[in-house]
């Protein structure tokens, strides 16, 4: 399969569109041909929006032909994780309980991209209600990693990551509560950004854990990630947690380089349990940063070891509260048959509608919040969050950027960890602290391991310092100059 329009970056496509060298309809057709060619092996999408997309592309071409000013987003094929609501397009959260749910409103994140001319190609598969690290918790089956279709794409935004890696979409949106954008980006060899908590509105993001949930982006370059955030960032009166602070010009200083930048290497992220291939690749990337003039030092986040424990109390607690809304009354599944009363109907609906991981977390959270246990679990976990934030404050006094592997391993085999929740939860050990601290972090590919699987390096910046994050990540990406094309796209197969 030769490189096509859908394999280009958003910036390249935007330039071609502006120069009249291609049309939004041609770009869309390229993306749709790719979906037709690989989707039976990848399974990234739950719903395709072919008709809507074609109409949208035709409208855009009519608009572009007038020579009117054009946004860098116009005409770019975008996929959305199926936890973001789309007016008139089914939104399932990867759950049986929302199998037929058609939202009457658009998520603000999508409304902003759509307003700037993005073209929706479909809604992507994910772990049910974004709970998981392998995409195996979807009620609609797993997504397969384009680098090796026997392996997971990571999760929970696995479909979005796989779609961008395979060229089915040029960009995608995901959500990141404990690493659900960065970890699948790492496992699929693409760029995944989790911005500062509150930077992007969450109106229309179906809630999992409200003190942690963040909308994030997938792309194949750091520059595209910055272009997307430019459109997405900003205050939204419909989300009281969205930050009312100015939005800087994210691509302006992106070529500034890293000379003199203070980079802290998170020492404990290279220890036991981390694949040697991951360590080698990330170390080599850090050497590149040093070669570019960054000053490299070591830093410890002593409470990061407790962040995972805190996360598995805070996230389930908030989830048990947020998911109380699925009661079979106003939308979603209602268990079929006669019910003696509404309470019995709710028990049956929730028992039939939720999958094993969601039930596990609702139970864990309900227990942690119940009378007599609240202080010992939820209360203590909130204190650990304070300690994690203090760790970051101390680290960012000495360093501008922190680096670590994104994930301790490369993509693992489908089924390998499915029966061991604790082993699965350990996937997020390096990504969770940024969610607890609310700070921005990005995963970019650092290379391939000996098995030919992608490795990701995570860069973390202080709250709202996405400009420095993009500048450092772009410098590293340029120096590494990787040409990442999954085997799926190389053969005829």
């Amino acid at each position: 399969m030769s490189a096509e329009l859908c394999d280009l970056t958003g910036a390249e496509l935007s330039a071609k569109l502006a120069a009249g060298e291609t049309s939004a309809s041609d770009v869309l057709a390229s993306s749709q041909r790719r979906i037709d060619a690989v989707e039976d092996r990848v399974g990234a999408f739950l719903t395709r929006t072919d008709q809507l997309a074609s109409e949208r592309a035709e409208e855009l071409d009519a608009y572009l032909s007038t020579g009117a000013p054009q946004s860098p987003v116009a005409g770019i094929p975008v996929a959305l994780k199926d936890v973001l609501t789309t007016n008139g397009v089914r939104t399932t959260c990867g759950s049986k309980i929302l199998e037929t749910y058609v939202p009457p409103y658009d998520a603000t994140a999508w409304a902003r991209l759509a307003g700037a001319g993005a073209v929706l190609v479909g809604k992507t598969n994910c772990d049910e209600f974004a709970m998981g690290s392998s995409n195996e918790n979807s009620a609609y089956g797993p997504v397969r990693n384009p680098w090796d279709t026997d392996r997971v794409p990571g999760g929970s935004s696995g479909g979005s990551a796989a779609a961008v890696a395979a060229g089915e979409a040029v960009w995608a949106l995901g959500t990141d509560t404990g690493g659900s954008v960065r970890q699948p980006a790492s496992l699929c060899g693409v760029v995944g950004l989790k911005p500062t908590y509150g930077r992007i509105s969450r109106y229309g993001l179906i809630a999992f854990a409200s003190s942690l949930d963040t909308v994030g982006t997938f792309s194949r370059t750091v520059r595209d990630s910055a272009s997307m955030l430019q459109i997405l960032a900003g205050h939204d009166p419909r989300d009281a947690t969205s930050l009312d602070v100015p939005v800087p010009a994210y691509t302006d200083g992106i070529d500034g380089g890293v000379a003199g930048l203070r980079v802290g290497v998170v020492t404990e992220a290279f220890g036991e349990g981390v694949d040697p291939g991951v360590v080698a690749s990330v170390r080599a990337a850090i050497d590149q940063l040093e070669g570019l003039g960054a000053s490299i030092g070591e830093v410890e986040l002593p409470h990061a070891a407790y962040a995972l424990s805190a996360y598995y109390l805070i996230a389930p607690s908030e989830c048990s509260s947020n998911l109380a809304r699925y009661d079979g009354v106003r939308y979603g599944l209602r268990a079929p048959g006669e019910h003696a009363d509404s309470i019995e109907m709710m028990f049956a609906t929730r028992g039939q509608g939720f999958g094993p991981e969601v039930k596990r977390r609702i139970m864990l959270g309900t227990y942690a919040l119940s009378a007599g246990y609240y202080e010992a679990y939820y209360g203590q976990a909130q204190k650990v969050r304070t300690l994690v934030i203090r760790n970051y404050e101390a680290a960012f006094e000495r360093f501008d950027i922190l680096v670590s592997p994104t994930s301790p391993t490369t993509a693992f085999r489908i089924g390998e960890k499915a029966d061991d929740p604790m082993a699965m939860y350990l996937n997020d050990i390096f990504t969770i602290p940024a969610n607890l601290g609310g700070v921005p972090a990005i995963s970019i590919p650092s290379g391939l391991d000996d098995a030919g699987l992608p490795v990701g390096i995570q860069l973390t910046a202080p709250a709202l310092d996405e400009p420095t994050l993009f500048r450092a990540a772009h410098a590293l990406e340029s120096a590494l100059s990787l040409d990442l094309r999954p085997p799926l796209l190389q053969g005829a197969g």
Partner: protein
Amino acid sequence: MPVEIDIEHVAKLARLDLSDDESARLRTQLAQILEHAARVGEVAAADVPPTASPIPRANVYREDVPEPSLPADEALRNAPERDGDRFRVPRIAETGA
């Protein structure tokens, strides 16, 4: 020390029907996860204040501007069962007397 959890009680609080198999599996798994999670107690000293949100905000107000509401038909479009402009549900209270 393994945590003993009254699974039936928690499931009742969560309004969740569980099969016997599910209950048995959850009893083991929750105990295992909570044993790990309980480590938060090792570092969370009394003088450390809790943090509920990473970017604390309080009392976020906006202007009270009247806007059109979602039309009833739209709001009811996903209803499992409707009765005119209302959601229809099974009995919620004892009848009679």
